[in-house]
């Protein structure tokens, strides 16, 4: 008797969805939010480097064709010209993939936009591991590249709610920003929580006595799912969502980390130079000795493949996160036999 080999998942299109099969989603939240905002803000313009269609900028382009500027597959002039537009009083949102905005055009982001402190909003698609296409398109180190850039505000949104609320906040901020874009059918999660996006502020989405997950970007969605799953094990998990990577809400991080809970940072980014290390240095400099664990991508060039496979393999899936929390708790103390779990 022969059994058919299980069908392997394949690398889907360049842009794979990371939404769960039956998850609520919102189409192109960035494009729609920008198009709406532009109705009342005539100084807002959109630009792209031959990726309008793939960064949801096409929604803005179709709504405001006279305010969209196609710069071609030329990221250096995309960012240089965005600076020039801001110099003459416009508020540009310039979109491309994160890898190109950061690796390829960093000198222009740094010197043309950030140094003069211009209100240019750089929008980077495919942040972290959100495509199975391989290292050329996986911006696993964009936060590490950008965190050292003075003046720059960096936002890693969780879902469509975060994006819709972040767009007007970024336009209002009188300085340069970088948004890690989630595009296409983007999960809608945070409307179930008492939450509003505030630039520079972290938000405790749920409290918990046993574990604290300090998370950003799409990993907040995973953290919330993991927290729900762990309820069944009677593990009480708090989630502190940190959508603004820079400036980091140090007070909120310090307040939360002053605790004997298991503390893990969760990010869709390499463990080098992202949220995890920002939190680690913040609590170390505050003299807090809490042991910290990091959930994030390994310091290596990642494989190509199907996104769910890769999220499992590299530890970003909800299953992987739940397993990691259980393992950390059992390492730390006998668990679940421990009759008195650590309290907050």
């Amino acid at each position, binding site marked *: 008797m022969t059994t058919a080999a299980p069908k392997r998942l394949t690398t889907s299109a360049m842009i794979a969805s990371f939404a769960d099969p039956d998850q609520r989603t919102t189409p192109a939240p960035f494009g729609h939010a920008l198009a709406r905002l532009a109705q009342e803000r005539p100084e807002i*313009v959109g630009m792209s480097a031959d990726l309008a269609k793939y960064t949801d900028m096409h929604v803005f382009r179709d709504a405001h064709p*006279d305010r969209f*500027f196609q710069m*071609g597959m*030329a990221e250096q002039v995309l960012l*240089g010209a965005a600076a*020039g*537009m801001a*110099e003459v009083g416009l508020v540009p949102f310039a979109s491309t993939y994160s890898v190109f905005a950061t690796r390829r055009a960093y000198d*222009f982001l740094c010197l043309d936009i950030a140094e003069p402190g211009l209100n240019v909003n750089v929008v980077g698609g495919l942040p972290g591991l959100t495509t199975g296409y391989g290292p050329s398109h996986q911006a696993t180190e964009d936060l590490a590249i950008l965190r050292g850039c003075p003046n720059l505000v960096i936002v890693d949104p969780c879902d469509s709610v975060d994006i819709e609320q972040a767009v007007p906040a970024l336009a209002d901020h009188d300085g340069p920003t970088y948004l890690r874009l989630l595009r296409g059918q983007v999960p809608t999660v945070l409307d179930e929580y008492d939450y509003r996006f505030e630039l520079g502020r972290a938000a405790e989405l749920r409290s918990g006595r046993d574990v604290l997950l300090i998370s950003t970007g799409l990993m907040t969605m995973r953290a919330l799912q993991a927290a729900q799953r762990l309820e069944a094990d009677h593990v009480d998990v708090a989630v502190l969502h940190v959508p603004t990577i820079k400036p980091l809400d140090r007070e909120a991080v310090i307040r939360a980390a002053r605790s004997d809970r298991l503390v893990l940072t969760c990010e869709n980014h390499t463990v080098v130079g992202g949220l995890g290390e920002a939190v680690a240095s913040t609590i170390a400099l505050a003299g807090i000795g809490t042991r910290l664990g990091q959930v994030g991508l390994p310091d290596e060039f990642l494989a190509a493949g199907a996104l769910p496979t890769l999220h499992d393999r590299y530890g970003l899936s909800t299953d992987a996160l739940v397993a990691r929390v259980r393992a950390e708790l059992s390492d730390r103390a006998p668990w679940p036999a421990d009759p008195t779990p650590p309290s907050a």
Partner: protein
Amino acid sequence: MTTLTDTTTESTTDRVARLRDAAYRIRRHALDMGEVQGQGYIGQALGVADVLAVLFGDVLRFRAEDPEWPDRDRFLLSIGHYAIAAYAAFAEAGIVPVEELETYGSDGSRLPMSAMASYTPGMEISGGSLGHGLGVATGMALGLRHRGHPARVVNLLSDGELDEGSTWEAALACAHHGLSTVLAVVDVNGLQADGPTAGVLRVDPLEEKWRAFGWTTRRVDGNDVGALVAACDELTADPTAPSILLADTTPGHGVPMLETREKAHFLRVEAHEWDIAREQLKEGHAR
């Protein structure tokens, strides 16, 4: 005042004479600043002085007393190391007081060695990293046109800067978007950090390249004020394409002692030579 002189009633002879005088003073200012520092990009400053005299005396609309005037033409210096030349031109234009030039490169001065927008009135962008100016000019011209401003955007580049791929990204974008308000001026001095441009990375044929990229081009002797004036007049004509003025210049021009010195990116001048240089400059201008 909006422009330095009402050129509509001025004869060409008078115009050229006025701009040659301005170029003389720009060179003189640059030598004075070079002496203060004991070093500097004096070769480039002397070479590009005629170009700057024509731009600030004849092309750009600005208000010396209000460098932020919204309707001004934008002058973008993407070659930050030419700051010494730009400050000399700003002083000649009345944007910076002449007496301030002696602070050039000193701690706390508004006139740092490399041009920075946050330090100096009239400096639109920060230089230092080459290949940025034309991209920013692209965005300014797009933005000004979008907002209905007729202002021109003038970007001064060097031929060495044409090595940078970003310059060519911007060249494509200006032509694609039909940015006729963009005027690029290239100081073609054939010299860059590691030696003659021809040996470092060949950029010729320049005119053909820019024409192929969709630009209206003129190539002139960049130390001939009359030729520069005529070329700038001609380059305002095309309402559909960006224009470029390729100005061949001689580093050290106007001071024979420095003109004939071994060509170097960073020209060495001994302490006792500054007086000789000023004397040679004066003699040359009187001829």
